[in-house]
């Protein structure tokens, strides 16, 4: 069997596996769009492979990669069984990300096909969009949302997906160009990361904090210089952090800090793809300041809630950064945030806005009483006036109460309390989805 014959055989294998995965429920609604897309891709692949000369190693190599991609995607579908994810959160996330991931492709108005699966541990949060459509010239991208298996129902941590939405947007050419020109340009214009030589000098600065000096000594050979690719990757991370902040708001700040400090408790490690956490937090501090969030508690009249939000702001918005990690000016960050908000608004992705006290206080009270937080009318009215509540406000309320519990002098069972809070919020999202669905149907819309 030569390579061409084997690749054609592998197309058949992928097709057989595709049939087999139909045994599973792997989509909230229908698995048809994924199935149809795959059948079409396999047909196109076979039609190109059939007339290919068996000695044309270049073409065969290209299509081997395509077949490998298809088999990987089918394999992932096997893990997309219903029951592995927080469906209500996933649906809200899809609503948020879909307008951004639409593009001017050949078919179906460029709407991506969204698949969800759970895999891996803390590092596994991902939203992947296929980044190259040129080979098969197919009209739709397949968009995969990956939850860490162990954290799949920890909805408070899922606010980190705001960052992942940024990576997904970056793979779409029209957004990439805008993001480079409007969001990254102000960040890259001046400062210690302005060039590879400046960045290397900054990392070698003798005034860097002690953990950096230790790490620098430890990794001297490995990361003695910052390369352009590394710098590009770092800026993409900074941009994605702004995506997270602008799309998920306060809950993103808390999830970002909790997850990243769990992976790097010192907050000073860096790598080829990720800048030190302390620099990311410093940038977010400027962004929060620009958005006016540190002043948000002064708008709250309820004393207890105000003090809880003050504690939240202190914990997650942070304090003025030290000179070494403060690599962007307030003006640079403000320009980037405003440009990003404009871009998101243009495509129809809603940005996070701080909730009014009239929205936040009932959610927080429900959580304190161990009732799932949502827009449910608990007043005992004969005609309940349930409210539409932004799912991000439910997550924000969850983090405020999580912080409140963490501040209590009772270490016992804190992990359990956080799990219960996550479950309450997940249940709240489900109930809110039901309220939204009913109201939309009543108003004659779709849900």
């Amino acid at each position, binding site marked *: 069997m030569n390579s061409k014959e084997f690749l054609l055989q592998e197309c058949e294998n992928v097709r057989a596996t595709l049939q087999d995965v139909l045994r599973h429920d792997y989509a909230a609604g229908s698995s048809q769009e994924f199935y149809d897309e795959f059948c079409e891709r396999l047909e196109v692949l076979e039609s190109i492979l059939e007339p290919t000369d068996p000695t044309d190693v270049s073409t065969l190599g290209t299509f081997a990669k395509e077949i490998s991609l298809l088999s990987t995607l089918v394999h992932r579908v096997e893990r997309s069984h219903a029951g592995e994810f927080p469906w209500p959160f996933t649906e809200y996330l899809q609503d948020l990300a879909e307008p951004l991931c639409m593009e001017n492709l050949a078919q179906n108005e460029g709407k991506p096909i969204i698949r969800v699966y759970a895999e891996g541990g803390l590092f596994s949060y991902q939203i992947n969009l296929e980044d190259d459509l040129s080979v098969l010239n197919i009209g739709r991208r397949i968009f995969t949302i990956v939850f860490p298996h162990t954290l799949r129902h920890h909805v408070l941590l899922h606010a980190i997906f705001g960052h992942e939405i940024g990576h997904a947007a970056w793979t779409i050419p029209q957004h990439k160009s805008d993001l480079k020109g409007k969001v990254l340009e102000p960040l890259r214009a001046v400062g210690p990361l302005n060039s590879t030589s400046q960045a290397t000098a900054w990392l070698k600065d003798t005034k860097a904090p002690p953990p950096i000096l230790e790490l620098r000594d430890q990794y001297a050979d490995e990361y003695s210089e910052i390369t352009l690719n590394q710098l590009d990757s770092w800026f993409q991370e900074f941009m994605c952090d702004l995506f997270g902040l602008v799309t998920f708001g306060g809950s993103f700040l808390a999830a970002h800090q909790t997850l990243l400090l769990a992976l790097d408790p010192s907050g000073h490690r860096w790598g080829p793809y990720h800048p030190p956490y302390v620099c990311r937090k410093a940038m977010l501090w400027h962004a929060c300041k620009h958005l006016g969030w540190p002043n948000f508690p002064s708008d709250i009249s309820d004393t207890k809630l105000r003090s809880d939000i003050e504690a939240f702001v202190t914990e997650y918005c942070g304090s003025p950064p030290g000179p070494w990690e403060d690599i962007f000016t307030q003006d640079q960050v403000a320009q980037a945030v405003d440009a990003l908000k404009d871009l998101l608004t243009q495509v129809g992705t809603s940005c996070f806005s701080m909730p009014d006290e009239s929205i936040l206080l009932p959610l927080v009270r429900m959580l304190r009483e161990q009732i799932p937080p949502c827009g449910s009318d608990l007043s005992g009215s004969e005609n309940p006036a*349930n409210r539409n509540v932004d799912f991000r406000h439910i997550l924000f309320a969850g983090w405020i109460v999580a912080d409140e519990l963490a501040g209590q002098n009772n270490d016992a069972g804190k992990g359990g309390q956080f799990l219960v809070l996550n479950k309450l919020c997940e249940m709240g999202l489900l109930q809110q989805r039901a309220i939204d669905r009913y109201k939309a149907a009543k108003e004659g819309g779709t849900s």
Partner: protein
Amino acid sequence: MSALVKASILANMAQNKLVVSPIICGSQLGASSIDLRLGNVFLMVRARGIPAVDPGRFAHADDTAGDHAFQQARRQKHERYEASFGHKFLLHPGMLALVPTLEWIKLPANLQGIVTARSSWAREGLSIATASLIHPGYKGVITLELANLGQIPLTLYPGLRIAQIAFYSLSEDAKEKDMGSRFNMAFEPVEGNVAHEDEAFLP
């Protein structure tokens, strides 16, 4: 013990003693009951899971993560599905499924709840007759034990109104020490323990 009428149910809710959340629409409120909706988790008995439900197997087992055989048998008893709204769930004749309500319930110390099927679904063969008593002080979703007693499969969807709860006032408040339940703060159905406190009668 007397049943609460709608006005009393609503008064208890207004005073934050009783919680049923969310009540999606006013038509869920009956003269002396509240309709309950189907949640989105389904526990279904797995045909190849375990040979029999044997209380003797539970009686001397260590109900902690350390007892592999016990934990495995327990987990293999059911298949678990989680579905979004609009996702279909078929309940075949003779089949038993454990499902949660969409609503979160919180009962005060002086009320107990009785859960029954809605009559429109009961007429189609849907039974939720077992374990219908909700103790005072309970907090969480309610697990419904759905069985199809009819001859044809029933198609169910999360969010449908399938059950109802009536509330009864007690002669006095239940004692704090009596109100604990193994199923308190339930977010979804879990397996019970049919041997609990009956070890003396088991081999």
